[in-house]
């Protein structure tokens, strides 16, 4: 899939994963990898961006003798995810338009 198209979707994927519970880098990468092809170097900027936008927060917790950084979805993040449904409807309209024009 085109990387530009994927970008917006990945944000929503990460937020969706976090609604199931807090998670950390490795786990997120594995779970996300099962759905859509994504490299680590793509995931980090997404997390960072979401954090800057206040859609997720992070905290550190000790695990197995070292600190693991966990990510947690915020209220803003949940709102963003809800908004995604509306965005999707709009996308479908565009999709229908593209299809219609092509035929």
């Amino acid at each position, binding site marked *: 899939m085109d990387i530009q198209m994927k970008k917006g979707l990945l944000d929503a994927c990460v937020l969706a994963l976090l609604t199931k519970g807090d998670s*950390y*880098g*490795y786990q997120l*990468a594995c779970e996300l990898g099962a759905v859509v092809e994504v*490299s*680590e*170097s*793509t995931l*980090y*900027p*997404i*997390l*960072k*961006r979401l954090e*800057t936008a206040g859609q997720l*927060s*992070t*905290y*550190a917790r000790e695990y*197995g003798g*070292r*600190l*693991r*950084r966990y990510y947690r979805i915020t209220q803003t993040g949940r709102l963003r995810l809800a908004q995604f449904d509306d965005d999707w409807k709009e996308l479908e309209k565009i999709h229908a338009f593209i299809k219609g024009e092509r035929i």
Partner: protein
Amino acid sequence: MTKRKYLKKLKKALGKISPAEAEDLVAYYAELIDESYDHGKTEREIFSKLDPPEVAAANYLRECPTIGEEGKREGHVRNAASNFGKIVMGFFAAILSIVLVSLIVSFASCGVAFAVAGVYVLAISFGLLFSGHAAVFFAQWGMAFVLFALAMLSEAAAVLLYKLFAGMWRFVVGRPKPKKPMRKSMRRALIASAMMLLGGQLMFTAAFGALGFNYKNLAVTEGLATHEEQLSVEDALALEADNSAVTIKRSEDETCKLVYRDFPETPKRFVFLDGKAMLNDGEGTLSVMGASFELQWRRGLLIGGAATDLQRAELYLPASFSGALTVEVDNGEVSVTDMVCTDLVISVKNGAVTLDSVTTDTVDVKTNNGAVILQSITAETVNAKTSNGAIYCKNVTAETVTAEIKTGAIDLKNVACTRVTATTSTGAILLEDLRADHIYLHTSTGSVKGTISGSEAEYSVTASVSTGSCNLQNRQGGSKQLDVRVSTGSVNIKFVG
């Protein structure tokens, strides 16, 4: 490739971005690599799957160019506006730091002191178990547990204050850390100390109950020995004691004797030489310390408090004695009743002095810590001086009365003399039926109030009050003198009779 190499290359590839940002990214990859190892991946698998560090860095810089930039831009705007605010904040934080640091240090050292005291209490208690005083033993263990709990609470307070301190500076520097929940160990320590506090108190209360709720039973006081020493006295007698309360009385006949009490573990030394009686604890600090350890080991921790009271000495003077009496005591109260003598000089370091029904030429009483109580005194000169305590005179007749105190009140009830001087730094001066030709009342902080016998017209009045009210008016021409000086406080003196 190894983890170290990868991270190093990554850092280099990031170029000039803020250190915090770079650190964050590197930490992310470090965690990822560690986790992969933990999940049983081999080095080859890990690094073949991972994008090369150059790509990772480039991806980050491309995807998140705004984070660093925005931060900088915002920073610029914010800095311009808030640099001044930051300096002000830093200034207040520095002032608060002084308070916080001293609080942290004092809580921490308090904790250590409590712990040391607790260990001492525990260790010294075993002697009581050996001698079969189980209730006192358990009472002391209860105290020890309370001390340990206090030690833990103090240390916990120090840790919490430190966190406050660190958090404050992080805020000032502008790098707030995410809030972490209270550490489990901290919560456990708090619960443990609360339980210890409760348990210790229960234990103490139970043991105290078994002792009949009488504080005197908290020490084992049996076996107190009484000694009687005959003294010969002519026209002067001096008594010196280091740790004894002293009561001086008149005997019914011509005997002159000193009765004192001590514990066998800490025998007192008595010497009578050239009209001077000396009653002291054993020689040398070390032996005294050893003896006091032994005393506590056998009789409980609180024996010290009971000892001063129990090891009291009584001096009986012959009925015909009328010479000079000098008493010097370090720790312990001194009381003199029914005395006729030429001079009475008493000096005490820690303890109150009580004189009742004394007729003499000169009364000179001095104590550092303790009250001075003078009742029914007839003398030429009365001098009373104390640093901390109070001076209370009732029914005193003398030529001159001088009362001087640093912290505490002076109370003059029915005092008749030619000249009275009362001086206190902090404390009130109270009068009742004061009869004197020359009255000097000075206090820095405190009020002066009460009644003087006589009419106001007889007196030349000098009254000065810096802060406070004053009911006296300065006037000249009287045959008697009243001089009142107060810095902070009010003056309310009435003339009666």
